[in-house]
């Protein structure tokens, strides 16, 4: 039998130029190379390592759930060098962790960021990870953009991306990048219980600023549980209310800011800082807008009369 030479070219060029496709292909490979330059491997759990992004000089961000220890965290840098990081802070609500590398890291490894505000459903994106020595990638599209999304731990995030791509083992904590390799966000498969999601770069910057400043993210709370209630038309008319709903206080925590301020069981909170409240989330949003150490003015309906109570929220993020 004859041995055929197998180096004969038969690419489908006759079908029209493949240039568009191979151009895209090499652009994607170049994007992965660019992004890979700022992706580290984090060895802080059993099985395979997770990924992290060199976000600022000497600062790495990753997915908190993948970092199972708090001291001497072994990191493999993009250039293959090993180093050790310490935890600068964690935010359980967004599952972000900030790590500091002792001795810093070359500025050239700091990830270039892209403006993610122009991203739309259908935009082409790559997920890049370093679940070991080498960088690897998956490719897909933005499948949805969630505005004002609330994670199941209660954090309000202005914008999240749901991804139509595979976030493989070890990819959590790695970057979502555009076709130039610039970072759009941080991939996390645990944030929404298995659905691949990415937190946008802007949200990461905001959380990171707080983590680096105080080691945790401020989560103001006043210590009440509430339930939405509808007010009768007579009550609305009597008090000339703009809204026909409010939040009924159904429990108050011991020694909480609410208790100290004199909030009582059965009070119906109508407004917080003059913002009408109709769902529990509205109260959380109002509290999030209160400056550190500041107070929130609650307008409550108690025994048929309107009262205003000033409550100074405590910081629950501390000690978490």
């Amino acid at each position: 039998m004859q041995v055929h030479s197998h180096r004969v070219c038969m690419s489908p060029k006759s079908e029209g130029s493949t240039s568009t496709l191979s151009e895209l292909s090499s652009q994607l490979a170049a994007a992965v190379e660019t992004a890979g330059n700022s992706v580290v491997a984090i060895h802080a759990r059993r099985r395979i390592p997770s990924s992290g992004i060199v976000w600022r000089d000497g600062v790495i961000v990753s997915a908190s759930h993948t970092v199972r220890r708090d001291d001497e965290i072994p990191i493999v840098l993009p250039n293959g060098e090993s180093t050790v990081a310490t935890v600068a802070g964690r935010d359980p609500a967004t599952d972000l962790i900030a790590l500091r590398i002792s001795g810093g890291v070359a500025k050239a490894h700091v990830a270039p960021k892209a403006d993610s505000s122009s991203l739309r459903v259908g935009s082409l994106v790559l997920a890049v990870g370093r679940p070991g020595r080498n960088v690897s990638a998956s490719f897909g599209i933005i499948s949805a953009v969630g505005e004002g999304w609330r994670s199941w731990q209660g954090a309000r995030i202005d914008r999240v991306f749901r991804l139509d791509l595979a976030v493989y083992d070890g990819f959590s904590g790695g970057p979502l990048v555009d076709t130039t390799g610039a970072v759009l966000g941080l991939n996390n498969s645990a944030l929404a219980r298995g659905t691949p999601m990415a937190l946008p770069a802007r949200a990461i910057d905001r959380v990171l600023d707080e983590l680096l400043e105080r080691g945790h993210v401020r989560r103001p709370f006043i210590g009440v549980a509430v339930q939405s209630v509808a007010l009768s038309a007579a009550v609305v008319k009597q008090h000339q209310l703009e809204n026909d709903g409010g939040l009924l206080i159904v429990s108050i925590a011991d020694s909480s800011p609410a208790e100290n301020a004199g909030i009582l069981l059965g009070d119906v909170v109508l407004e917080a800082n003059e913002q009408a409240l109709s769902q529990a989330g509205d109260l959380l949003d109002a509290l999030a807008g209160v400056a550190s150490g500041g107070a929130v003015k609650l307008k409550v309906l108690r025994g048929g009369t309107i009262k205003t109570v000033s409550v100074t929220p405590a910081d629950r993020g501390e000690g978490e």
Partner: protein
Amino acid sequence: MIGSMLGTARAMSSNVNGLSELLRQAVVEVRSGDTGSGTGIIWGGSGLVVTNAHCIRKGASLQVDAVGKWREAHALAYHPDHDLALLAAPSVSGPLLELRDPDTLRPGELVFAHGHPLGIRDALAMGVLHAVTRDRDKSARWIVADVRLAPGNSGGPLVDAEGRLVGINSMVVNGLGVAVPASLVQRFVERALSQRAA
């Protein structure tokens, strides 16, 4: 702006159609005994088919289907470690696929898997290259790609954006497609044929 973007997507799409047409002519369906079917690549233009060893049941009758017609084939060589089998199928012919050197592959490159997953003829899947895993001597051992494969893809080609053969799709590990590098396939075929000639 939008017009030019639309043009790019359309051009890409027609490029992919071209790949699909090429690969349709370059593969066969392989059936062995009463096991499920797999895919095979017509090697060297005519007469030879390479597929996965696990698609072939030893001792069972062997047929390949190129253009809607089942023809008898027989096994020439196996390499169980690399999960490869070489078949003689005198009457089949197809285009020669250029081979892609695994050392030039970059993570993130587009790759395409062609085959007959779950009995669906000539299905194409697109993905990106994930990694090339290597033996201790640094030679390429497996091609790992973020591409969706199913039973029936086994033995089929994984190609790059220009239609060059990257590897032979062999298995799915943790959701990732795993292929035997084209360089190993070529070495296997050359050895098998030279041993037969000797």
